């Protein structure tokens, strides 16, 4: 079920790369912003559901601010942009350490309790189920937006051909702003659920970011569908690795698949050669 959350992270990461060619290493730090905003909200006695909404809004705003306040001015230089997002990620991590300390914190679940799923013979937490449902609602809403509306379709179009988008009167600044907002909102949702289901610490973003990177490469850079399928593939491979090889080898099968994909299908399962000018 956590795979759907990883898909959210990977989709945000791949959309930002798709429309602007930016490898946003601060995307992981946005996950952390989401988790810590939720922590701060619930610590201040704000109800969990309201805290969750606040975390999503704050993370989306932070993502937009990162674009409008920094990336927008340097995005023509890929290397400088890449390095700047690394610096922002490290800076945000330090700020969180100063504010909250470096020890892991426990998040109050958005919804408490557990449920026994007879069909699969296992007991799961409601919050796991909620993470799955909310993630799929978000993915479904995004899919509708980018395939059925002019505004959303412009995002996909820009990821295929920037010049084509300009020729059809697409406002590239608006498309990029919307993309960073959506990616930020998705990172906020992911942050709350990963923080709840795994751990909330200033380093919590490293592993999801690495996984998102693997997912995007396997699924194909720029492909939303590829990100979703690859997220589930990675999820199953990690579970299989733990069951077959043991907990210490959790990432082994994923890495094997990653290497195989890079060798056999370098553009990924649903890779599309981007037509950036």
């Amino acid at each position: 079920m956590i795979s759907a959350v990883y898909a959210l992270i990977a989709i945000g990461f791949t959309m930002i790369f798709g429309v602007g060619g930016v490898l946003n290493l601060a995307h992981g730090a946005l996950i952390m912003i989401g988790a810590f905003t939720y922590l701060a909200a619930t610590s201040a006695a704000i109800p969990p559901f309201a805290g969750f909404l606040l975390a999503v809004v704050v993370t989306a705003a932070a993502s937009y601010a990162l674009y409008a306040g920094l990336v927008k001015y340097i995005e023509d230089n890929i290397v400088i942009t890449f390095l700047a997002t690394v610096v922002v990620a490290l800076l945000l991590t330090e700020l969180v350490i100063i504010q909250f300390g470096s020890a892991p914190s426990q998040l109050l679940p958005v919804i408490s309790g557990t449920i026994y799923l007879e069909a699969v013979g296992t007991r799961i937490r409601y919050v796991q189920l909620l993470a799955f449902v909310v993630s799929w609602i978000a993915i479904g809403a995004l899919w509708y937006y980018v395939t059925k509306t002019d505004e959303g379709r412009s995002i996909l179009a820009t990821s295929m051909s920037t010049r084509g988008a300009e020729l059809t009167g697409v406002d590239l600044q608006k498309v990029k702003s919307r993309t960073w907002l959506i990616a930020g909102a998705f990172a906020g949702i992911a942050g709350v659920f990963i923080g709840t289901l795994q751990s909330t610490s200033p380093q919590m973003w490293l592993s999801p970011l690495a996984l998102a990177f693997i997912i995007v490469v396997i699924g194909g850079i720029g492909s939303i569908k590829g990100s979703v399928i690859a997220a589930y593939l990675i999820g199953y491979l990690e579970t299989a690795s733990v069951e077959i090889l043991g907990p210490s080898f959790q990432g082994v099968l994923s890495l094997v698949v990653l290497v195989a994909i890079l060798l056999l299908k370098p553009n990924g399962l649903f890779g599309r050669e981007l037509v950036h000018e």
Partner: protein
Amino acid sequence: MTDPILEVEDLNVYYGKSHALKGVSLSIDEGEIYGVIGPNGAGKTTMLNAIAGFVDYEGTIRYRGTDLATVNPQQIVRDGLIYCTEDRDLFPFFSVHENLLMGAQFREDRDAVQDDLDMVYELFPRLDERREQEAETMSGGEQQMLAVGRALMSDPDMLMLDEPTLGLAPVIIQDISDALERLSEQGLTILLAEQNSTFALRHAERLSLIETGEIELAGTYEEFHDNEYVREAYVGVH
């Protein structure tokens, strides 16, 4: 006499130390087909790129009286000046239908958009037959039709076509030719940049010849048709 729809005055473009366009001036009237001919690398595409706002330039370009230096490429499109590039710049993984819808993405007159969609499918029946086909899987000729169709979906007042016949089979060139004639009859202004001088001379009412970034000759169709240098160097008729 009506005001020109497009005026280019003393246009200069530099690529580093290379002086790509040297003081180009021309004026295009509403409803005419204006041809720009010249060899590969003469500066035709550079001129269109400057008009569309894709390269920096010196000089003045006015569209319907507005200095285009003051507006961005998106606004130029929204004002009805649409550019079909030589590379076509389609959305490769969108279907024909989605590519056409993208041409109209900024329009709010939804009923008129549907009418234009019907018009494009009627103008290019091959596109109608391939509505769901991805653009990247189409032939060069079909992609060219789609590029023109997408441009028409933007409800243009003026169309700039860069090498619309390059690499196309004669039968497809005839289809493009027929479409241009119909669009011209409907009053659309067309700026046609072509190495294929025969094609340009077939359609244009006035023309310019560009060589090494400069306009060497400008005049009417008759003047070009009767010019010995043009006939020998560009049309292949002696």
